[in-house]
C-alpha cells in the first residue's frame, strides 16, 4: 500500500520551492559583483558641442552630483531612456553630462531638437576612445559621479527605477 503522506509531502515540498523561486524572481541579480565603487573619474580632453575644448578636471566639481551619460543618435535604447533624463534635468541638484559616442554631428543635433536636450554639457567622443577609458560596455551607459568618484554605474538604458534611485541618492 502506498502511503498517503508521501505524495502530500512531495507536493508540499515542490510548492515551497515554487514560492521561493517566485519570490526570488523579484530580487534578481544577486550575484552581481559590486562594480566600480569609489573609482576616480578618468580624465579626458574633448571638444564640446559648441566647439570648445573641454578638460574633465574643469567640469567635475567636488560638492556636486553629475550623471555622465554615453549616448548616440543611432542608438535605439537611448531614445527610450531620454524621457527619464529629461525628468532628471528638472532636478537642480544634479548636472547631466552628455558623452556623444561615435555619432554624426547633424544627427545628434536633430536628435536633441526632437526629444529635448537634457544635458548641461555635451562632449563629443568621435572615435569612441574616451569611452574605453571609462570602461564602458556600450551605448547607452551612465555613471553617477560625486566628489570625482564614480559612485554608481548603469549599464544599458536608464529606467524609472534607476531614476528614482538617483533621486534618492542626491536628496
Amino acid at each position, binding site marked *: 500500500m502506498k502511503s498517503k503522506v508521501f*505524495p502530500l509531502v512531495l507536493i508540499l515540498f515542490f510548492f515551497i520551492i515554487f514560492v521561493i523561486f517566485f519570490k526570488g524572481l523579484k530580487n534578481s541579480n544577486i550575484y552581481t559583483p559590486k562594480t566600480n565603487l569609489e573609482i576616480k573619474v578618468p580624465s579626458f580632453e574633448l571638444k564640446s558641442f559648441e566647439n570648445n575644448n573641454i578638460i574633465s578636471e574643469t567640469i567635475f566639481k567636488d560638492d556636486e552630483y553629475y550623471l555622465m551619460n554615453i549616448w548616440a543618435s543611432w542608438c535605439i535604447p537611448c531614445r527610450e531612456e531620454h524621457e527619464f533624463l529629461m525628468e532628471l534635468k528638472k532636478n537642480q541638484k544634479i548636472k547631466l553630462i552628455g558623452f556623444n559616442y561615435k555619432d554624426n554631428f547633424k544627427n545628434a543635433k536633430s536628435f536633441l531638437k526632437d526629444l529635448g536636450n537634457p544635458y548641461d554639457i555635451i562632449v563629443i567622443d568621435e572615435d569612441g576612445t574616451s569611452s574605453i577609458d571609462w570602461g564602458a560596455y556600450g551605448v547607452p551607459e551612465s555613471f553617477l559621479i560625486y566628489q570625482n568618484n564614480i559612485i554608481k554605474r548603469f549599464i544599458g538604458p536608464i529606467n524609472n527605477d534607476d531614476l528614482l534611485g538617483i533621486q534618492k541618492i542626491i536628496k
Partner: protein
Amino acid sequence: MASLIGSYSLGFGLFFSVFIIFFSIRNLRNSEVLDKKIVSFTIIQFFFVIISFLGLILSFINSDFSNETVFNHSHTTKPLFYKISGTWGNHEGSLLLWLLVLTLFISIFLVKSNQQPKKYRIFTLLFQQIIIVGFFIFLIKTSSPFNYIFPTPSEGLGLNPILQDPALAIHPPILYLGYVGSSIIFSSALAAMVTSYVTKEWAKHIKRWVLASWFFLTLGIMLGSIWAYYELGWGGFWFWDPVENVSLMPWFALTTLLHCILVLEKKKILRSWAMILSIATFALSMSGTFLVRSGILNSVHTFANDPERGLFILIFLFTLIFLSIFIFIFFYSEKDKIENSFFWLSKETSILVNNWFMMYFLSVVLIGTIYPIFLEVITANKISVGPPFYNKLILPFLIPFLFVMAIGPQLNWVKSDFKDKFYMIIFLIISFLLSALIIKEFNISFLINTILVTSAFFLFFCTLREFFIKRFKNLSQNIAHFGFSLLILSILFNNIFSNEVITNLKIGETFKSEKFTINFENIEQADEKNFKAITGKFNVKYLDGSSDILNPELRIYNQPNIITSEADIKTNLFTDKFITMNYIQNQEYFNVRYQVKPFMIWIWISVILISFGGFLSFFKKKYEI
C-alpha cells in the same frame, strides 16, 4: 523578408501541434496501429521550425537590422562564422534552437520506435507536445526572435566579444542536444508509466536515447569548460559557478539513470529509480534554463533579465513537475516486484551504492547553487558559495566512490565472491606506494591527498587490466571508466602541481623567480576585421636553458566596445604554460599572469574518452555482461 517567413512558419508550427494532439487522441481510441498522419504532421512541424531557424540565420548573415534580435546581437564587421553563431548566442535565438531540437528529436523518435507498442508511442508524443507547445508559446509571447524595428538602424550593437570563440560557437547546440534529449526520456518515462510499460523492453529501447543525450551533454559541458579556460583568462577550467553547476546537475542525474537503465535492462529492478531519474534529469535541465534565463543568477549566460520570462518558465516547469508527480503517484505501481533482493556482493549492488553517491554529489551541487537564493529570499542575507564548499563536501566521498567504481565491474550479476580477486590487493598496494611517493615530494596535507590519489590510481590500474584481460568485451564501459580515472588523476595532479606568478611588467622588464625568468620584450599592434589587437611578446627562460616565446593578446573590439584578454597557451603532453596580460589604466605597466598547469590536456582527453565510451555503447547491438 527572411524574418517574415521565419515568423510565419513559427505560427504554422504551433498550429500543427493542434493537429497532432487532435489526431493522437483520436488515434488512441480508434485504431490498433499508429496513424501515419501523425508521423507526417510531426515531421511537417519540424520543417516549419527549420524554416523559421534558417530565416533567422539568413537575417543574421545578411545583417538585416530591421530584425531586433539581429540588431541587438550582430554587426556588419563581424566575421561570417560569428554572424551565424550569433543566431544562438542570444536568448531568443537559443530558444528557437531548443524548439528545433525538440521537434527534431520527437520526429526521430516516432520514426525509430515502430517496434514499440502504439499506446506508448502516442503518449510519448503527447507529453512531448505539451513541452513543445509550452516552448512555442514562450517563444512567440515573450521572446520572439523576429521583432521588427523601424526605422531600420544602419548598424547593429554587436555580439559580446567573449562569446566570439569557436568552442563557444558550437557549445550551445551540442549542450542543447543533451538537454533536449532528456525531454524525450522524460516524455517516454511518463508514457511508460501511463501504459504500464516499465519493462526490460522499455529499458532496451530508451537506452539509446539516454546514451545519446549523455554523450552530447558530456561533450557540451567540456566545450564550455574549454572556452572558460581559454577565454576567461583565469587559468581554471571549472569554477563552481552557478551556471556551470546547472549543467552538471542533469549530468549527474543522467549518468545515474544510464546505470539504472543498464540494470533494468538486465534484471527488472531499480525501476522506481529509473522513473524518478528520468523525470529529474529533465526537470533539472529545465530549472537550469529557468535559473539562467530569469536573471535570478547572473553570468555570461544571462542574456536579458526579464522577470516575465522567468515567471513563464517557472510556471511551465512546475506544471511539468506536478504533472509527473501526479502520474508517478497514480499510474505507477510496483505490483510485479520480483527478484528484488540484492546480494551484498554483486554488480547491481555496487551500481546501487554508487547511485547513492551520485545522488549525494547531486545534492551537494544543488544545495550549493540554490541555497543562496533561498537564504536571500527568506532572510535577505547574501552569501556566496565557492569552491571550498564543494571541495570539502565532494572530495572525501570521491574515495569510496572510486573504489566501488573499480571493484563493481569486476563482480558478477546477482552473486559474486572474492575468488580470483587477489590482483586487486596487489593493485591497491602499488597504487598506495605510487601515490605516497608522489605526494611526499610536495608540501601538502599528506593523508587525504595520498588516499585520494590512491583510489584514482586503483581505478586506473583495474580498468587498465580489463583492456588486456577482457579485450573487446564491455569495451565501452571500460573506456568510460578508464577515462574517469584519468580525469580524476589529471584534476588532482593539476591542482597539486600548479604554479602561478602574478606581476606588473613594463616593456623591456624582466621578472625573476627561482625556476624561471619572464622577459617582456615588446608589443605590436594590428588591426583585425572587428577588433584591434595588441600582442605582447614574452620570453620565458627556464633553469635548464630551454625557453618559450609566448604572445598573449589584448583585443579592443569596436562593437560593442569591450577589451578582452586572450591567453597564449603552450600545450604539450605534460604541462600547459599559460600567460595573460592586462592593461592597467593610465600606466605603462601591464599586469602579467603566468601559470604552469600540468596535465591540462589530459583533462580534455579523458573527458573525450569518457564520452567516446558512451558513443561506442550506442552502436553496440546487445549488452554483454
